[in-house]
């Protein structure tokens, strides 16, 4: 089938505003009479609050309000799953980012002075900063309910028997680092209350409709009185999925009656904001002589920090994806999500899958080596295909792309001619390696949660359309994909589709912009709404011209019958005459698996995106520095809706996964964050960025819009083990702990005596 708009690399509709500075992000907004809000954070990672004295702060001229837990009218707690995080701490603090009090003042400076005047008396408690220690019975308790937030244990098949039959068994422990979204726009926004007591909150968000629920619950107000506008967002990557400052903003507006603005500075954002879960993963994997995986045993300990947020769900996502893109017919998985007094971990692009895929894709390499097999061959042999069972026994009934993407990776010039690429490093003391890895990532919310997309298409005077979808535009480009899909169905140019997203008063609830889902669910809803609108237009034409509806053809903004045609503008004039409205709502419910995986709440997923990476890099044997030179990204997003957007996701995801592999780490010492800004939290710059060639592998998904599935997370997963595998290929250093920074790579080289320092390094330093 030939498409008019699907697949075209059309420029984004929001790019013009963004290149001229006209786009107002939430932190750019100002209102007359606006106050500045500030948050008093905890002084200790774990302490009891004995008293809070706000008197002196409240008396400071220019201070409009000083609020504590006593001022929270509703539930003093939030959290997507468990509401265990206080809006303002009452009796205890559990991490350095905990909010203890709020100030609203006439200026930022006065607000800062007022924070200094709030007297909080603490009784410091021993903290627990290592999740394995936190699991011990006598460890300090972060919450009264105990330190284990979620334990998931699942067995499929007979693991013991399968290990006994294995030819090769590999057992390793992997550690992944704490990293952060590092969106360029920190958490910022404004809240305003009107004369009816209705509150509007402008704040970057992955899901404004859920923010409304959480704000209303804590303010003790009806949801109808709260409106959240959640985009445009200066980067999210999962870190704006949970509440950040929305409740604080709304509370200050409620108490002062004035507009209030909060912008966290970078340091406060780093201390208080959502991180990717650091995990310790023990993996034992057995394979038969021909490389077929037979047994897989995994223990995961995940540090969710002080509060749950999505920690339990992320653990389960890691459990579900524990064998990466491969079959594992017998599997036993034991996962723990554990509270500590570290920073808070929550949603971040990949949702638990980066960690286990890094481990699994390293296991595969070691198995291949033990069995004397080719690295690609062992992967192709085990790649999950439609009709296979996942490691937990769930059947893969949708379009699965591991084998196709891996085969495409194997067909790249970089892979085929890898020995040539490796042959001439830029310096004699540098060594080159080529690595490969693949990943799958479930699209959508899994088995339990309602998982729907909703779209409203409205005919506008002039013959264009307004398309409303709740899923916010967080920068990923879903809105141009929406416009293209709508235009395809409606028979108009995408420029004739005005896309509105992420505003609870203007867009229908369509779920989150997370979980690689927004194109999949909303795209399907757009097709439904678009077809209904198509029918409305055809009916109007049939009536106007007195022809059968079947003879009406819609395309290029014209309704044509035989030789006659009517423009959409003319049609709109007729349909909307006398102030009539013409809009159609489409709702799509994502299909679910037949049954839940026993013991794994909320799983499995049904639809999976796949991504493979091939990477060429160079290791400096004198310093341990790794330079990634070239990558090929092979996304299987099903049907490509916008090639430019897909490439943008692949390129950006590649770099984010490269940062995870090589440089990024939020360092905490006893709960105190040491990496507070971009001077020592190192995300890749343009100079570090490799060439990225994106080769889409379209494994069409029948349930997807035009065959599409989600890819926004898979793009950042396979690159990490592809890099660590390439390091091994280059210098024989096996990376089991992220990041593979200079110190770690150099230590690996020294352990094997391969560093240039003790060998020929000095003599070549003059070359």
């Amino acid at each position, binding site marked *: 089938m030939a498409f008019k708009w699907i697949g075209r*690399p059309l*420029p*984004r509709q*929001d*790019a*013009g*505003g*963004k*290149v*001229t*500075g*006209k*786009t*107002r*992000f939430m932190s*750019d907004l*100002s209102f007359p009479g606006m106050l500045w809000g500030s948050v008093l954070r905890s002084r200790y990672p774990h302490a009891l609050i004995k008293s809070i004295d706000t008197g002196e702060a409240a008396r400071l001229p220019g201070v409009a309000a000083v609020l504590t837990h006593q001022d929270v009218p509703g539930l003093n707690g939030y959290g997507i799953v468990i509401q265990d995080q206080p809006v303002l701490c009452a009796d205890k603090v559990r991490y350095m980012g905990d909010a203890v009090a709020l100030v609203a003042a006439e200026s930022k400076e006065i607000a800062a002075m007022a924070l200094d005047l709030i007297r909080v008396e603490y009784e410091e408690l021993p903290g627990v900063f290592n999740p394995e220690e936190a699991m011990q019975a006598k460890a300090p308790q972060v919450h009264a309910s105990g330190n284990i937030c979620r334990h998931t244990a699942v067995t499929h098949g007979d693991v013991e028997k399968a290990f006994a039959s294995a030819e090769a068994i590999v057992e390793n422990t992997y550690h992944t680092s704490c990293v952060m*979204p*590092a*969106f*360029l*726009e*920190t958490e910022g926004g404004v809240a305003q209350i009107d004369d009816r007591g209705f509150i509007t909150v402008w704040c970057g968000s992955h899901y404004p409709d859920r923010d409304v629920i959480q704000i209303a619950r804590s303010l003790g107000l009806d949801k109808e009185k709260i409106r959240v506008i959640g985009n*445009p*967002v*200066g*980067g*999210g*990557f999962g870190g704006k999925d949970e509440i950040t400052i929305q409740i604080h903003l709304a509370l200050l507006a409620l108490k002062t009656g004035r507009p209030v603005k909060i*912008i966290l*500075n*970078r340091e406060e954002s780093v201390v208080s904001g959502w991180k990717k879960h650091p995990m310790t993963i023990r993996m034992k994997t057995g394979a038969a002589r021909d490389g077929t995986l037979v047994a897989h045993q995994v223990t995961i300990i995940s540090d969710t920090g002080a509060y749950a947020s999505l920690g339990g769900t992320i653990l389960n996502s890691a459990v579900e994806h524990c064998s990466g893109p491969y079959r594992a017919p017998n599997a036993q998985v034991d996962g723990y999500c554990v509270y500590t007094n570290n920073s808070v971990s929550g949603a971040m692009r990949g949702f638990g899958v980066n960690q286990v895929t890094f481990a699994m894709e390293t296991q595969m390499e070691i198995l291949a080596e033990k069995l004397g097999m080719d690295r690609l061959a062992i992967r192709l042999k085990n790649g999950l295909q439609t009709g296979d069972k996942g490691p937990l026994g769930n059947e893969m009934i949708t379009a699965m792309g591991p084998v196709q993407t891996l085969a495409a990776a194997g067909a790249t010039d970089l892979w085929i001619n890898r020995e040539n690429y490796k042959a001439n490093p830029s310096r004699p003391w540098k060594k080159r390696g080529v690595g490969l890895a693949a990943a799958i990532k479930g699209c959508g919310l899994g088995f339990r949660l309602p998982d729907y997309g909703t779209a409203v298409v409205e005919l506008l005077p002039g013959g264009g359309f307004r398309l409303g979808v709740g899923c916010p535009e*967080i*920068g*990923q*480009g879903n809105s141009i994909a929406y416009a293209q899909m709508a235009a395809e169905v409606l028979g108009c140019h995408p420029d004739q589709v005005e896309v509105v997203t992420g505003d609870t008063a203007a867009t229908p609830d369509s779920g989150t912009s997370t979980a690689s889902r927004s194109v999949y669910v909303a795209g399907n809803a757009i097709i439904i709404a678009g077809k209904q609108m198509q029918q409305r237009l055809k009916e109007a034409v049939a009536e106007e011209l007195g022809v059968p509806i079947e003879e009406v053809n819609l395309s290029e903004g014209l309704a044509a019958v035989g030789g006659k045609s009517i423009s959409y503008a003319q049609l709109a004039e007729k349909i909307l005459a006398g102030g009539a409205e013409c809009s159609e709502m489409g709702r799509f419910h994502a299909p679910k698996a037949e049954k839940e995986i026993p013991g794994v709440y909320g799983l499995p997923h049904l639809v999976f995106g796949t991504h493979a990476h091939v990477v060429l890099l160079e290791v400096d044997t004198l310093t341990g520095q790794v330079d990634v030179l070239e990558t090929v990204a092979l996304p299987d997003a099903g049907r490509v809706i916008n090639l*430019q*957007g897909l*490439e*943008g996701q*692949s*390129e*950006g*995801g*590649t*770099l*984010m996964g490269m940062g995870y592999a090589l440089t990024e780490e939020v360092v905490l010492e006893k709960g105190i964050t040491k990496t507070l*800004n*971009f*001077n020592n939290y190192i*995300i890749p*710059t*343009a*100079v570090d*960025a490799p*060439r*990225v060639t994106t080769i889409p592998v379209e494994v069409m998904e029948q349930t997807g819009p035009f065959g599409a599935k989600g890819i926004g997370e898979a793009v950042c997963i396979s690159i990490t083990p592809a890099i660590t595998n390439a390091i091994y290929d280059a210098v024989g250093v096996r990376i089991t702990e992220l990041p593979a920074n200079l110190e770690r790579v150099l230590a690996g080289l020294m352990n094997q005596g391969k560093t240039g320092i003790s060998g020929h390094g000095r003599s070549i330093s003059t070359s």
Partner: protein
Amino acid sequence: MEKISFILNGLSVELAVDPKARLVDVLREELDFTGTKEGCGQGECGACTVLLDGQAVNSCLVLVGQIKGRNVVTIEGLAKDGKLDPLQEAFIAEGAVQCGYCTPGMVLSAKALLMQNPLPSEQEIKEAIAGNLCRCTGYVKIVQAIKTAAASL
């Protein structure tokens, strides 16, 4: 408070401000030029980049007292008579914009480069924008856009 005059996007501006105020704050809060973004507050991310006498500078590290009589260009001043700068056109066409928060600073660093060096190499482009962090794009399309703009000049 002190009276400070400077040229902003080609127009004379006179303000009574604390000379110790950061240029980024004066632009955003006094003048409502919010195209200039703040990402880190310490000169690491480049989101607040403006042109000061033709040089790209981090406006979070410039105090307004330092710019008396000098020439400041923000992203709002780059388009001339409603016509976008070739860099802006290229950023749109090449897909170099995602969330867009780094974009104003990125475009202005590229502008400073092209004013000095109209036909830069890929490496020169990368070095010119090395102080501008982008978390969305992987820089591939940004570098391409700058090349495209340079070629069109």
